[in-house]
């Protein structure tokens, strides 16, 4: 009897980090569909193949139902290494009706935000090697509120790393540590993937994978923002809660232009796969 050729085709298993996330999401009361798991699986495989996995220490793609959406897919620079921050995002005032798979998570100005427990100091993130990213689906309507980041409140110039909505209905800006100057894209009404990234001599604001603003000031190598409750989403450490609608967030090491372009493609493919816009 001839051998069935299907027996010779290696069966692709789900990425271990995707499986670990599914287990954690279900344990937190979430529900994970097959399509969601497949999309998370592909995201991890793409990060691996692009050599980007070690640049991220926290990613939350907001999938797995409302309770599952509070469980980040990534909590460390590798699955086997040290994990940072809270195992789940702490939800201040979001209710189940604020979430759906196609729309992501919708906030309300001054009241609804997530805190991660991820401090820069614990994760070893320095002023000259850090990124913050969010996918803004609907821009905030109140000026100078934070989409994501840290603020340790230690004065001027404030050692802050956060993405903000610059004016009502306007995209975002990256406020960085050594100067009070804000790096902003200057384009109204912008949504999409925003990423602020500090390298040793350059700070970039990336939008949909391309740098839309940059500054060449040398950055400090000091660690900042050890304050609880750690990085905020729809806010920063100290508050400044925005409204608007987000599709994901990430924190980690600095991203080069090429890395930012690759990360944008990965997250864009993820959102397309789950039908979020």
């Amino acid at each position, binding site marked *: 009897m001839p051998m069935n050729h299907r027996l010779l085709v290696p069966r692709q298993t789900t990425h271990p980090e995707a499986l670990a996330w599914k287990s954690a999401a279900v344990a937190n009361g979430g529900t994970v569909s097959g399509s969601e798991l497949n999309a998370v699986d592909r995201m991890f495989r793409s990060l691996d193949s692009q050599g980007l996995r070690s640049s991220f220490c926290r990613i939350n793609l907001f999938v797995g139902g409302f309770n599952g959406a509070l469980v980040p897919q990534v909590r460390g620079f590798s699955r086997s290494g040290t994990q940072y921050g809270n195992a789940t995002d702490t*939800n*201040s005032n979001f209710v189940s009706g604020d979430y759906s798979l196609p729309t992501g998570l919708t906030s309300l100005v001054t009241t609804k935000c997530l805190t991660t427990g991820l401090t820069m100091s614990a994760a070893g993130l320095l002023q000259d090697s850090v990124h913050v990213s969010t996918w803004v689906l609907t821009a905030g309507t109140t000026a100078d509120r934070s989409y994501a980041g840290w603020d340790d409140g230690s004065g001027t110039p404030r050692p802050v790393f956060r993405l903000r909505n610059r004016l009502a209905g306007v995209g975002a800006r990256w406020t960085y540590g050594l100067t009070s100057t804000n790096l902003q894209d200057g384009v109204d009404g912008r949504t999409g993937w925003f990423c602020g990234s500090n390298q040793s001599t350059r700070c970039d604001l990336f939008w949909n994978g391309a740098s839309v603003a940059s500054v060449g000031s040398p950055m400090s190598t000091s660690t900042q923002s050890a304050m609880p409750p750690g990085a905020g989403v729809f806010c920063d450490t100290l508050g*400044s809660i925005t409204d608007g609608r987000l599709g994901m967030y990430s924190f980690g090491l600095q991203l080069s232009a090429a890395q930012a372009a690759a990360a944008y493609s990965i997250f864009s493919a993820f959102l397309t796969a789950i039908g979020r816009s």
Partner: protein
Amino acid sequence: MTLQQLLAADIDTLRQWSLVFPAALAQATSEKWQQYGSTNCVPVPVLLTDGRYMLCADVLSEVAPGGLLRAMWVNSDLEAIEAGTEVMAWNDAVAMIPVSEPL
């Protein structure tokens, strides 16, 4: 609008209203959350300029059976909550939030 009416309202209606209550009730609610709640849903009231606290009324969508705050709700002093809570239009409550620091 009353608290009882809001308990039967849909979420779009709830979002048009806020629950305003004194510090003592905020403290009692926080203690009940610590006993019965989880980080999946933490009611965090916002301090208003008159010293009272405010939550968006959509938090009531989680006190129904199966909701994330159901256990906290049924173990709370509901008479005290009803007596101590003022239902205020959302925009009026937001107008009472202290202006945040300049950035």
